[in-house]
């Protein structure tokens, strides 16, 4: 059976570079469509809500902004058992405590994915509530995605070009472009929520 892969972006999009992880999965879904055994999820700053997704995965790839005390924009790739420890290296924000606990809890319950990969990026700015990604961090989105694609290639998973499944990503009103441009037109940021759930009268 094909390995089930969860590609998770975590962090708070409202806190500048903290949104890095979430923006990575967003961009990935813009460009690539994956087979059914791969799931892309915007995990936000959630904790236990993420457990069911971990349970249904054999491989976990996490994008996140992590403070390693490096130069802003530096990428840091960590694999396997080191992942939880690295995420707690320096506790710059809430979601990491939460996510470390999620991994610990999943292990206690016996359903933590055995194969872990953390694709981290050193943030430049966090103290800008409501701000978007800084250029130097945004520039790492593509390289970060390539790391994930390499990992998928090793698992013999080949994506196809074009937009993928976005059903587990952020509402359109806070996707990166809508969020950062602030005042999107209706075409850019569909106002009615998720199209799949549109009440008939709206159309």
């Amino acid at each position: 059976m094909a390995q089930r892969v969860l590609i998770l972006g975590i962090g708070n999009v409202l806190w500048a570079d903290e949104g890095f992880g979430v923006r990575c999965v967003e961009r990935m879904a813009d460009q690539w469509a994956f087979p059914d055994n791969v799931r892309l999820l915007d995990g936000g700053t959630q904790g236990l809500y993420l457990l069911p997704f971990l349970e249904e995965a054999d491989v976990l790839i996490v994008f996140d902004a992590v403070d390693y005390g490096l130069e802003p924009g530096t990428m840091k790739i960590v694999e396997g058992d080191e992942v939880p420890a690295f995420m707690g290296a320096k506790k710059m924000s809430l979601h990491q405590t939460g996510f470390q606990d999620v991994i610990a809890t999943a292990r206690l319950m016996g359903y933590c994915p055995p194969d872990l990969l953390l694709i981290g990026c050193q943030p430049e700015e966090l103290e800008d509530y409501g701000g978007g990604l800084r250029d130097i961090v945004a520039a790492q989105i593509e390289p970060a995605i390539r790391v994930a694609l390499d990992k998928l290639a090793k698992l013999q998973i080949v994506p196809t070009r074009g937009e993928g499944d976005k059903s587990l990503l952020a509402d359109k009103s806070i996707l990166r472009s809508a969020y950062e441009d602030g005042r999107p037109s209706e075409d850019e940021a569909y106002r009615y929520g998720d199209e799949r759930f549109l009440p008939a009268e709206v159309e």
Partner: protein
Amino acid sequence: MVTTPNGFDLDTSGKRIVVDPVTRIEGHMRCEVNVDDEGIIRNAVSTGTMWRGLEVILKGRDPRDAWAFTERICGVCTGTHALTSVRAVEDALGITIPDNANSIRNIMQLNLQIHDHIVHFYHLHALDWVNPVNALRADPKATSELQQMVSPNHPLSSPGYFRDVQNRLKQFVESGQLGIFKNGYWDNPAYKLPPEADLMATTHYLEALDLQKEIVKIHTIFGGKNPHPNWLVGGVPCPINVHSTGAVGAINMERLNLVSSIIDKCIEFNKNVYLPDVVAIGGFYKNWLYGGGLSSQACLAYGDIPEHPNDFSADQLHLPRGAIINGDLSVVHDVDVRDPEQVQEFVDHSWYEYAEPGMGLHPWDGVTEPKYELGPNAKGTRTNIQELDEAAKYSWIKAPRWKGHAMEVGPLARYVVGYAKGHEDIKNQVDGLLRTMDLPLPAIFSTLGRTAARALESEYCGRLQKHFFDKLVTNIKNGDESTANVAKWDPSTWPKEAMGVGMTEAPRGALGHWIKVKDGRIENYQCVVPTTWNGSPRDTQGNIGAFEAALMNTKMERPEEPVEILRTLHSFDPCLACSTHVMSPDGEELTTVKVR
């Protein structure tokens, strides 16, 4: 010594203990207390060390999108902020919602209450009372007997089951991954349970983890996804189509049946596990009646779960609305969140500045201008505070007051208000629990009372959820499949200027969003969140807040191990993520406790 207007004697002469950060909570908070020679807390200072900035981001945005932003401010109560937000916008623009939307929103909101209460008790709070390391010493057979005595109808009770769990725990602890159980004070004499009770409760910790995965499916079904379910101004974003099975995303009978089965599972768990555990664990701590704080004298609830759509009158709400002040339970005051004289925020002891000192601002006129400065008696530096000066500004949390009173909000406040109002379900539950435990009414004004009220409320919410599920199904069977009113979706239908307020009872207490809309955009947006009420610093008059009051006069077994402080603070289910934003990125990894 100083006596506060709300009746607490503060004495700062004893040694100072600093706990920073307080662990197992959502967000970042710090607490300082002075203890006397006998280890009794004689002064308490609670501070949010993060800044709240939501107001800044929402200005200029489309009000119909506000829910998606507010959903991101917290890692726990996503849906409750979203619901409060759509209610505020609907109130401002005069938008009504259909009956099915009311039922579905109530089911979602009740689901969040139940999920949060169960997760809070087992995964954040239980470890203040339960010692999982001690559970390794339990006899599985005796644990099985205890389980059958405590809850005869719970099917998971065999000695073999408890032996398996114990082995799993043992492996987990021995592998060095204490993880979620680390940072405990496991040899502190404040822990009173025998090993068998510890094993039983730790086992339920695991059962609750499995259950919570089921509970959130309801959010996925009605909200399209979870975390971060979808919401919609004017209703709910899930169409109903019970006549087809193929429509992707539509609510059909199969999905409704799943919702129904999850509701039943929660009702069973509350009845057979959660409530019996609270009684059993509480029974070992009956003499630990600290932590009442403001609960016996000043409680506030906005009320929630309207029976009918668009009707928020107090007698139509299943979770009660009202205010109690001056310890007089014979009078329940009505609460009007629009009245500029009722809810006001003060900042004399908060790191903000208003035009004039001493003034209080109603949220519609709210101002969030940060001003970070330490008082003359603070110790340390601006970036590394050793000791706060509570006579000056000392918190990023504002001090909201109701008609000038510091108030407690949350499950216990709701239950005190409900009890005082003679709310039948609440009164029966409270009286029944007190009878079972052979305790007098004043026992509920305590840390354990707060914990018990949450369990009772989880049970009550389960029944309410079933009520609204039945109502929804009946309505659908009668041919009403409407879930949204989009008549005023287009901004051209809106007034040039409008203002509104949305209220909910979040799991941790009264939550309000106040919005001003101008030319189709958000002009001002203020959230007053439950932890702002409970975790508030002193106000202009010197009244201490609910956390501070609840810590007063508690005896600490070992002042360097703040088990008692954590117990009481956790009993509020504090959540600072939405009240604040991280001040310094260099947070300590472990809780530090400093005694000076």
